């Protein structure tokens, strides 16, 4: 048998890419999907890709979703790889979520509160019945409208802070860390942990957050508040000396209120878990808040026993771009290492056989 060394990697790659492009397009008789359609009609997918891709740009997210055939982790990866090449002109001022133009705001800890409960556009009370009128392309009836009051909607936690019943905000003014520029080191401060969670995989955080509710590091959470809406982003260019508005972004914020029995130095008070993400992302931010609070176990003098409380475990495994790359790298050739394992196992078997014969 004549053996021909495997050649043609280059041609195989070119052919694979061409096939992929055709596969992505699907049946050419069906109209091509426009980016505006993705942006306007697949908003939650856009939001997830922007959050995990760490880049707020709905049009680029729509392109990434189209390019990845709706594989949202692949789409987030495309955004990450793009954002890393962008120059950094400025850092924004901290956004003030109390001034958010709220679309939705619910609190589970008070029946009513200043600003009220605002249900907003939510799936919460939809009955999960497939809507065949959507398949028929029926236009929805116009929604009810009301005039915006323009009033600042105070955060629920602020009511508790005033009464001294919950821990205050962390002191402002320190420059937060940035894991996209500095590698993670441990112990990781809370700002770095929150950054990692904000771009972490929604499914991973959901699983971890859920695990705390089922007894693996429980922290007795109440959904103090979840709010969704638009906030203004400002930067302060050095040459101007004052902040200017560069646009609005949609954010979801979750403040969890958690039990705390108090310690020798601190009276009993509620503690917090915090979640924040680009776009409309309630599942993500609620999970994030549970995990944030779980990772504060050591700081609050609690036993660290559960996966969600193990900061290294959570932070090293929450990034789905890192995770997907390393899991999927197993499909790269490993035959050199496998060969060395083959030789080792053959040697061990030969030694075992020799030992058996000697014994007989």
């Amino acid at each position: 048998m004549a053996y021909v060394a495997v050649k043609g990697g280059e041609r195989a790659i070119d052919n694979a890419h061409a096939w992929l492009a055709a596969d992505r397009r699907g049946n050419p008789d069906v109209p091509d999907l426009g980016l505006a359609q993705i942006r306007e009609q697949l908003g939650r997918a856009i939001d997830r890709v922007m959050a995990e891709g760490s880049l707020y740009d709905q049009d680029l997210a729509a392109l990434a979703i189209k390019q990845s055939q709706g594989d949202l982790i692949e789409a987030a990866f495309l955004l990450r790889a793009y954002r890393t090449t962008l120059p950094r002109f400025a850092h924004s001022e901290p956004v003030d979520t109390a001034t958010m133009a709220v679309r939705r705001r619910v609190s589970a800890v008070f029946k009513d509160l200043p600003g009220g409960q605002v249900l907003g556009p939510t799936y919460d009370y939809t009955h999960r019945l497939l809507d065949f009128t959507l398949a028929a392309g029926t236009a929805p009836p116009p929604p009810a409208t009301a005039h915006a009051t323009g009033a600042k909607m105070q955060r629920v936690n602020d009511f508790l802070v005033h009464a001294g019943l919950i821990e205050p905000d962390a002191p402002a003014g320190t420059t937060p860390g940035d894991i996209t520029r500095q590698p993670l080191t441990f112990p990781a401060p809370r700002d770095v942990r929150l950054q990692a969670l904000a771009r972490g995989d929604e499914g991973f955080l959901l699983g971890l957050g859920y695990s705390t509710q089922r007894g693996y590091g429980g922290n007795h959470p109440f959904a103090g508040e979840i709010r969704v809406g638009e906030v203004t982003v400002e930067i302060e260019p050095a040459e101007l000396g004052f902040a200017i508005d560069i646009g609005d972004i949609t954010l979801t914020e979750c403040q969890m209120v958690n039990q705390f029995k108090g310690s020798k130095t601190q009276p009993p008070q509620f503690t917090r878990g915090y979640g924040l993400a680009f776009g409309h992302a309630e599942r993500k931010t609620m999970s994030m808040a549970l995990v944030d609070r779980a990772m504060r176990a050591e700081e609050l003098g609690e036993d660290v026993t559960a996966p969600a409380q193990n900061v290294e475990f959570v932070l090293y495994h929450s990034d789905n771009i890192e995770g997907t790359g390393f899991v999927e790298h197993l499909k790269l050739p490993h035959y050199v290492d496998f060969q060395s394992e083959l030789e080792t196992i053959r040697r061990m078997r030969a030694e075992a056989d020799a030992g058996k014969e000697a014994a007989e």
Partner: protein
Amino acid sequence: MSTMEGYNFAYLDEQTKRMIRRALLKAVAIPGHQIPFGSREMPLPYGWGTGGIQVTAAVLGPQDVLKVIDQGADDTTNAVSIRRFFARTAGVATTTDTSAASVIQTRHRIPEKPLREDQIIVYQVPQPEPLSRLEPSRAETRRMHALAEYGLMHVKLYEDITRFGHVAISYDYPVMVNGRHLMAPSPIPAFDNPKMHQMAALQLFGAGREKRLYAIPPYTSVVSLDFDDHPFRTTRAPHACGLCGATDSYLDEVVTDDQGGRLYVCSDTDHCETRREAGHTGSESPLQEAAQ
């Protein structure tokens, strides 16, 4: 070749390259010690060579000649992909000839031909922490490295010997660098470990996902861990290459049929081709087959 529109030479911006070079200088100054660095997101997936690519991008100049291998072969798809990446973003000349390359990026092998002082070899590293399978916490392993507390690894080797009669690690076999730092040589077969010792070329290691760099300067001691009564030994398939007849190269085992047929060929494709061009033949060479 022209470089890619809208991107800097070798993809990374100059500030990022400078950050990586600073980390590399530190790595060279402390052989075998892992240096955390601000690893960037690359347009290739983590685990597919992003660390090696960043190191290569940081050391590559327009005059360099680049060779990329995976499993010892220049034509494996990921090697092709990375070589194209640099051809596209840096416009550098590429080669498959080990002796013609000034920078060699590799995954899982060291070329058979000894490297020279004017060459750099860049290893892709999936897991830079040699203690990771024994102690998962990086906070803890950093402390162990600081104290040169490597007893855990010796215990692991000892346990292998008591259970199997010898050390059962066949690749990514831990080495002691410059008599101080325990280091993961990346998943090269243990067969390649001796080539690292006193190598004339600069050896650089990049782990992108784990955000660590390390290095072995030229002519540095690299010793595979062992015991006096159980010295380190390498394994290779006990055959000659079917194409070039080499009996000292690392071999791939190729399944040729479903009747247990096997063919052994050099994993280093350039080494094999160079030998065949020089007239060496093996049992499966076309000439020999014709003679039969």
